């Protein structure tokens, strides 16, 4: 998806796509924490048909040499549209269920391609927890 000269550092570009202001909010948070907000372009599905979402994603991916599309819900219309776009663009990766840790890890990471996405997902999963944690009792129960 990139046209960088051999040996040149690949500029990371990704789309964050989701419901409402999910993408803009996430990118704002990435910018505040890391200064890497310009790594991402935001796409919102708000008030758009499936066809319009797909067209917007295609245009954004094409204009910014995007390597990855991060989406919010696996069942969301952005994910459906992203998979349609990726079907026509070999090398374009779709990551669903993105959270802030995923985006930060990817933006700040050094791996490329799927390895970078897998690493980011690992960080994203690891960032989720319930507090306070359930305490296991000797009888095997929890409280």
């Amino acid at each position, binding site marked *: 998806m990139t046209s960088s000269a051999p040996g040149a550092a690949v500029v990371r570009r990704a789309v964050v796509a989701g419901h409402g202001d999910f993408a803009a909010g996430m990118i704002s948070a990435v910018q505040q924490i890391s200064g890497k907000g310009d790594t991402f372009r935001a796409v919102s599905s708000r008030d758009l*048909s499936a066809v*319009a979402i797909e067209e917007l994603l295609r245009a954004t991916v094409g204009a910014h040499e995007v390597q990855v599309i991060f989406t919010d*819900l696996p*069942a*969301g*219309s952005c994910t*459906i549209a992203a*998979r349609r776009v990726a*079907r026509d663009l070999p090398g374009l990766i779709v990551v669903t269920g993105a959270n802030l840790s995923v985006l930060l890890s990817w933006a700040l990471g050094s791996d490329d391609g799927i390895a970078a996405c897998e690493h980011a997902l690992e960080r994203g999963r690891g960032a989720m927890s319930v507090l306070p944690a359930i305490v296991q009792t000797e009888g095997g129960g929890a409280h």
Partner: protein
Amino acid sequence: MPIELYRIDDRLVHGQVVVGWGQPLNVTFVVLVDDAIATSDWEQELYRMGAPPEMTVTFESVDSALAHLAEYQSRPGHGILLAGDVETMRRLVERAGTIRHVNLGGIHHRIGRAARLRYIFLTPEEETSLRELAASGVTITAQDVPATPPVPLEQVLARTGE
């Protein structure tokens, strides 16, 4: 009534359906009625992938949906029947004779459609189809998610987008 919602939504299986309606209605199955998708394995996999494991998605053409409708309507659990456009739902409702409520969930902008609600845009032909369905005794309301109040068809058609 195991099919809780007969919904027209051009996004078909997506967040509002799977989460917005799916969780409060405890939906266990979705019947997606679309003549083109019913013949495409790739399209079916695309929509099936998005559904959570506890929710099955079945794909039907209008004809096959009619053949299996009574079975869906008596199936244990709770279901949503989805059509992507007014014409598909109209064909289904007119021929089935057992569908009494239709939900307008998402019919978005395209050339030739006029804005009625933020998420409902209709061509004159689509408006006529909906009026004819309503005249036959079908209750039609617009409601994108359960948390918003349903808007009766007459009010939908009287509005100019908001």
